[in-house]
């Protein structure tokens, strides 16, 4: 039996979310100004300027942000820059390649320390 369309709509609940990461908090990012308005203004002005079209296009910047979001594993940022990349016309392949760039740098960053391990091992062993 079909469910009425209103079953699929979600209405306000009196219960608070019990998780650390609530998707609804993303749209409240601007609220950080409540505790410190001056620094928040400086940050958001700077943030806005960073993402303007410049030597890099807005789409390129969005894809860089998407890759960084994965590197720092920020769920808010991943949501924001997945939407942002789609809006700016990026396609699925470009977005996944950006994630692989993040993965390659993260993986590489671990592996390149292997040289330090090798150096130390050689120092300590006969």
């Amino acid at each position: 039996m079909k469910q009425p369309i209103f079953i699929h709509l979600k209405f306000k609940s009196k219960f608070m979310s019990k998780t650390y990461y609530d998707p609804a908090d993303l749209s409240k990012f601007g609220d950080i100004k409540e505790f410190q308005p001056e620094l928040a203004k400086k940050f958001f002005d700077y943030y806005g300027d960073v993402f303007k079209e410049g030597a890099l296009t807005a789409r390129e910047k969005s894809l860089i942000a998407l890759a960084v979001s994965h590197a720092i594993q920020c769920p808010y940022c991943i949501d924001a820059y997945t939407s942002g990349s789609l809006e700016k016309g990026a396609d699925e392949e470009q977005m996944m390649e950006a994630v692989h760039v993040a993965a390659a740098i993260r993986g590489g960053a671990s592996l390149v320390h292997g040289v330090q391990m090798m150096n130390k091992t050689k120092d300590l062993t006969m």
Partner: protein
Amino acid sequence: MALATKSLQFRAHELANASTQLKVLSTNELENISLPTFSDKLKAINLYPLLPTGIQILQVNMGKMCNQTCKHCHVDAGPDRKEIMSRVTMKQCLEALKGTDITTVDLTGGAPEMNPDFRWFVEELSKMGKKIMVRCNLTIILANPKYNDLPQFFKKHKVEVISSLPYFAARRTDAQRGEGVFEKSVKALKMLNEVGYGKEGSELILNLVYNPTGAFLPGSQNELEAEFTKKLKEGFDVEFNSLFAITNIPVSRFLEYLVASDNYEGYMEKLVDAFNPSAAMGVMCRDTISVGWDGYLYDCDFNQMLELKVNSKTKHISEFNLDELNKRNIELNQHCYGCTAGAGSSCGGEVV
């Protein structure tokens, strides 16, 4: 996500009913947010009631019949829809245009070309010297041999062709418009290019419409146009004039998609957050009047699908009175946020 490929009406879906759509749209207390009414937003910028600036464009919806069943269609058009404009109503449109300074007639649907009186209507409009625009879905040109000469017909009457192509690759285009649509669209674009459409120096205008293939807003029209120009030329040797970036309005099948994919709240929040007063000043309903297949008048094609008739003594094309219509208050609802988000959205793309 996969959705049915029949119209909402064929599936007897609740959202086939305009009043159910309006009930969904006017539910402003959602799980995480309370949406302000669109009217209140306009009041805050002293733009309420929203008034016409002078009607310049008559947009004629020639029917809901279409060879495609796009997942985001606000008309709920498709091969299973039989409602089309009669020649009697078209004659009333021609009569209404006489003695007005309306410069442009914008033909839409469904696939307007499927109306058996489409060519007759274009010829009559052409005799009147009107600028004619047709919202051509491209694949209709290849759908049947009787449509193969449409590019030549459009050329003869200098019809401006406006065609949807949501992406410059098959995956996204086909996901929204149906399997194989991208390939056929490219073939149709080449046929239009061959007769001179979209070519540099040609007076034959071919504009493309980009609309997002999901629950997100369109990016910068200029950047998208540059990307489309490059990709279509390099990949397919296709040329066009301009790209119009259009926001999907939460009506009919796009509303169905939003609700079914649990994106409705997030999408409405995006639209409200992106409300732009400058875009609100330039919304297309201020200079356009929309005629339904049955001759009733609406502020726009979206209000037409929501069955929100014009708030005027003149309600039907047979009693068209431009002065009366120019004095009306435009009917508003929450879907109007779609036209005022970001750089705004109209049938001609961004408005600011």
